[in-house]
């Protein structure tokens, strides 16, 4: 009863029935139970931080994609679809698929063969302590910040839509994550992410299924959107991006292709340890590669449960949603409410509980991803090399367990900080571009060009971070600079991010190449297992064509091209 009272509050836009509450409480019980159950299997450092490296390709693949499917991702992109239309699907297609396939076929072999525990760990092996420390510290800061922002966003949505107490949402959800990650480490996080994957899909799939029945199919939905928003084009991916002013995002195809499709996407999918850690836990290289490709297939399908609900909101809602800045009034709904509003529209008792559980599961999978990645990077790349080098394995496992709890507490602190400075949420993407995009240039040059030197690894990374930061400051204090940074004054936030990411990557690559040419490279024998041409990749000769990653990657690439042509 106490929980039910906390769940209900004045002004809630949805009310949950007892069966909805049972579904939500059962979910919390199961994830905690899984954590406790798996604790007995995580006694060594390899088991706690890398899940024993024994995951099958399906478990690794579903976990890989689930860790990416956080609540901010689901609700944020449904909201963005209401604003910008199907252009947002670029986040799932050009902004993900090529990079995920590249990770599977080109980069994973190096990560996997060198047996590193993390991406900063690879930089240590390739470039030395300087590049590792810079990337580890920036990654740890970014992870905690993003985790706190996600947590706060989730709590705000739950407060607005369900009337849940904001402190209750933050503490119960995040402490649940802390307990199961603390108990079972990456193994527990991965098991729960697979569970969460099913819940997210089953809970959210109701909307497109019933919504498309209501609108009379895809053509009916498009007709309704055109009737509701005459003169606006919400239904094309590329054909409206020839000029900045011709589409609601203020985007140009060059920014989408090079900024989003190359810099941001490759930066995130190939070097953000949050997702890479999942497939590095696979039992062998082939499982890791196929798991990544399975992840790509489901990533390509996510628009069905995120973009289509946003489009359906444009088609069927009898009122217009407004920006956050105009929210807070009675009977006014904001863009961020698009997905929960569609859940409420089609889901009766039971299904509504399932939908809310899907949103909570999304939050938890995203947060667990952040916490486990933070824990591993902190323990292996900051604590061990910089603070206590010679401790026992038991000590590091213990550090990992307590660090999970500490990471959650710091994230909660960040969430409360965001509460007082809500504009930080706007900067979430900006922070990401600061730290992750330059990593891609450093890692890929290190993998593919043996001439890249340790000094170049450090200075290239630093140059990329500083370039991104400087460009952001330039536009912040002189808005006219947008015309130079993003080539147009029409560019909106997302579009500006794409170009800043592109410049950051260009600066990173240029500095890395120039410094490499004037400094001394590592001896070749130190590059074995780390660089193309110096690494023996296991042969796939013993496998049939249908067992080889390249075959499935080609099939996914074909489907990706077909989708882009279909919605051109």
């Amino acid at each position, binding site marked *: 009863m106490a929980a039910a009272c906390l769940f209900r509050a004045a002004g809630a836009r949805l009310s949950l029935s007892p069966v909805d509450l049972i579904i939500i409480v059962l979910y919390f019980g199961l994830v905690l139970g899984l954590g406790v159950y798996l604790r007995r299997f995580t006694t060594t450092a390899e088991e706690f931080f890398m899940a024993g490296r024994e995951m099958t390709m399906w478990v690794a693949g579903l976990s890989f994609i689930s860790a990416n499917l956080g609540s901010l991702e689901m609700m944020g992109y449904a909201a963005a679809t209401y604003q910008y239309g199907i252009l947002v699907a670029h986040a799932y297609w050009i902004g993900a698929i090529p990079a995920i396939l590249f990770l599977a076929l080109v980069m994973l072999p190096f990560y996997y063969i060198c047996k590193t525990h993390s991406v900063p760990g690879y930089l240590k092996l390739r470039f030395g302590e300087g590049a590792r420390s810079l990337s580890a510290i920036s990654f740890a800061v970014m992870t905690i910040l993003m985790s706190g922002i996600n947590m706060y966003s989730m709590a705000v949505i739950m407060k607005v839509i369900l009337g849940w107490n904001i402190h209750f949402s933050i503490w119960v959800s995040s402490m649940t994550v802390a307990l199961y990650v603390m108990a079972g480490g990456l193994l527990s996080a991965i098991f729960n992410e697979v569970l969460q994957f099913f819940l997210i899909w089953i809970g959210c799939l109701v909307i497109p299924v*019933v919504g498309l029945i209501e609108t009379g199919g895809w053509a009916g939905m498009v007709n309704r959107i055109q009737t509701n928003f005459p003169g606006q084009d919400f239904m094309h991916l590329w054909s409206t991006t020839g000029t900045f002013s011709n589409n609601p995002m203020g985007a140009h195809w060059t920014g989408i292709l090079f900024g989003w499709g190359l810099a941001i996407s490759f930066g995130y999918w190939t070097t953000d340890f949050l997702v890479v850690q999942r497939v590095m836990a696979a039992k062998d290289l082939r499982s890791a590669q196929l798991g990544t490709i399975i992840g790509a297939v489901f990533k390509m399908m996510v628009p069905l449960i995120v973009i289509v609900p946003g489009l359906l909101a444009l088609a069927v809602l009898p009122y217009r949603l407004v920006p956050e800045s105009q929210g807070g009034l009675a009977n006014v709904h904001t863009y961020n409410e698009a997905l929960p509003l569609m859940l409420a529209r089609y889901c*009766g008792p039971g299904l509504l509980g*399932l939908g809310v559980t899907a949103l909570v599961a999304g939050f938890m999978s995203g947060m667990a991803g952040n916490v486990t990645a933070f824990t591993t990077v902190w323990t292996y790349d900051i604590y061990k090399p910089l603070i206590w080098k010679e401790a026992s394995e038991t000590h590091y496992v213990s550090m990992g367990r307590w660090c999970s709890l500490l990471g959650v507490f710091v994230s909660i602190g960040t969430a409360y900080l965001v509460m007082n400075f809500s504009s930080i949420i706007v900067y979430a993407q900006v922070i990401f571009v600061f730290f992750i995009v330059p990593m891609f240039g450093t890692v890929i040059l290190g993998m593919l060009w043996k001439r890249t030197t340790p000094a170049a690894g450090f200075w290239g990374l630093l140059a990329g971070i500083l370039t991104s930061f400087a460009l952001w400051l330039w536009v912040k204090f002189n808005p006219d600079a947008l015309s130079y940074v993003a080539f147009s004054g029409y560019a909106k936030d997302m579009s500006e991010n794409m170009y800043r990411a592109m410049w950051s990557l260009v600066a990173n690559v240029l500095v890395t190449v120039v410094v490499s040419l004037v400094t001394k490279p590592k001896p070749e024998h130190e590059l074995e297992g780390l660089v193309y041409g110096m690494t023996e990749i296991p042969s796939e000769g013993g496998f049939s064509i249908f067992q080889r990653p390249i075959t499935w990657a080609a099939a996914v690439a074909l489907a990706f091209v077909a989708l882009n042509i279909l919605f051109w």
Partner: protein
Amino acid sequence: MEKHAVSVWFFIGALLTIYGVLILVSGIYGLFVPLNHTVAMSHLHIGIWWGSGMLLIGVGYIVRFRPRRKNL
């Protein structure tokens, strides 16, 4: 994965089964007792279909991935 006594797929099956039953029963209850709030397309009784589907998938997973003695 082999060394874990109970497969993750079994847990998923168990959860889907329980949720399927709850949603199915709730959907059947909704046939006889009108809802407090309006749900679009309520004539489809989507809860019954969705709950049945989840129940079927859940039972399938439980049977396929049930803990076996050799794994214990």
